[in-house]
């Protein structure tokens, strides 16, 4: 399977991380934030890192052509 085709599976993996059902009832407070909220904040920062890799490693070349 090609590099570009594999990218299409990326959203599925990210959705699995988003639906963190296993810790919805976690009532701990960590770093001043509820554990669930902190998880989603960290997930958002991770998503930013994923997007960084995406635009640098799998950027469609035709977009930069004149």
């Amino acid at each position, binding site marked *: 399977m090609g590099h570009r085709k594999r990218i299409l599976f*990326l*959203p599925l993996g*990210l*959705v699995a991380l*988003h*639906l*963190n*059902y296993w810790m*919805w*009832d*976690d*009532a701990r*407070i960590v770093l*001043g*934030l*509820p554990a*669930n*909220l902190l998880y*989603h*904040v960290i*997930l*958002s*920062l991770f*998503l*930013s890192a994923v*997007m*960084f890799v*995406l*635009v*640098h490693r799998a*950027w*469609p*070349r*035709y*977009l*930069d052509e004149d």
Partner: protein
Amino acid sequence: MNPVLGVVLLYLAVVLGIGVAAKRVLRGTAEDYFLASRSLGATVLLLSIFGTHMTAFTILGASGEAHRGGISVFALMASSSALVVPLVFYFVGTRLWWLGKRLGFITQVQFFRERYQSEVVGLALFVVLVSLLVPYVLIGVKGSGDVLWALTGGPAGGVPPWVGSFLMCGVIFIYVIQGGMRSTAWANAFQTLVFMSVAAITLLVIVREYGGLETAMRTLDASRPDLLTIEKTPRQLGRMVSYLLIPLSAGVFPHLFANWLSAKSGKTFRPTIVLYPICLVLVWVPSVVLGALGNIDFPPPIEGPILVLLILRHSGGLLAGLLAAGVFAVIMGSLDNQAFAAGTLFTQDIVRHYGFHDGLSERGQVLTGRLFLAAFLAVALFVSLATSRTIFDLGVWSLSGFAALFPIAVASLYWRRSTGAGVVASIATVAVLWIIFFLDSLGSRGEYTVGETGLLPVAFLFAGAVVSLVAVSLLTSPPPDRVLDRFFPAR
């Protein structure tokens, strides 16, 4: 003068100055007025797109939802957007920009009409897009007046709501007609910085009043521990899945489309795609945390936005003025683009296409765009004065409708076999299902889910849109090669 009103007037003067300054580089062509000559750089593009996408709901609505339902609102609405929206920009936004630049499109309707060689597709899309935009615009106009009224004293001598709404529409009108898309983008960039700063300052000031974040959360945990967790039920899982579909609306918003097409190059999209999740965290975390913490001082039921109550209790004065400016910033940042997008659609797809057979002069296009913007804002202002607060409930319905149009956007870019008949069938299915669910929801209390499953109407609208698009496309003749060659050139 009331200090809140003073800060708001000062803020509006700055925005006006930025918007009018953009006129200095106006070239007078239609492409320059409607798309800033496709010249926006990376920083302005990021701030303008983010400011356009965030609405009054981001500050007032999200904190209100967190006050009622707790921190789960961040996962439902912000984290889902952090996941979906950058991918929409990557897969849809960049490709539409590329095709728009190569083939000279200004609006979505032009793109779809040419892609499917169908006037019916263009007209159906125009009607649906404008219909879904109207409630959105009314929410912004009404919200600005309501917030200024509440922060300046409310029933005890607050500025009448129509004054706030009128001020905002007037300022938007003046700066948008000056420099078109460039004024809108520059003003939005400034407005985004303002509401991001206001969100952070408000969080710091109020949390300090509670003795710090840790102490505040422990206090809340003692009285309302349910607000710090997410209910572990199938219904909640259904909601979580449904809310993942709502941000797909970003792929169809006419006001975001205009921003995409204004980009200078493909590379200018990169910072927007990478930094979007971080921008969401910066704005949504303060809003959600403050909304939830509001239960300490103001247990439900409450009168008015929780953020306004918190500020009036814990600081008032200057911070109340800053919040008012922040709310104006977040509303104006989207409202100016929505009104401008509606004007662009009307000018390009109705007046120019049908009135002048695509032959209207450059000057005529700009003049028509300005006249329509004036008329659109005037009508929005008057209608907003006559509507009740129930208009705010239409927000999620508007988003659901846009999200359900996402399959046709993807098909137009990536599925060669999709046909105009398939697109029309998909739009018609969405319209019919939308009306059915909306009518069914009128008698329900609280959040409406289909058959009490936890699944929002958007899940069924989306499924219906996909099935009808695929089925009808496969049953009708494929598009001719000469058309496909334009939209899927060999690379």
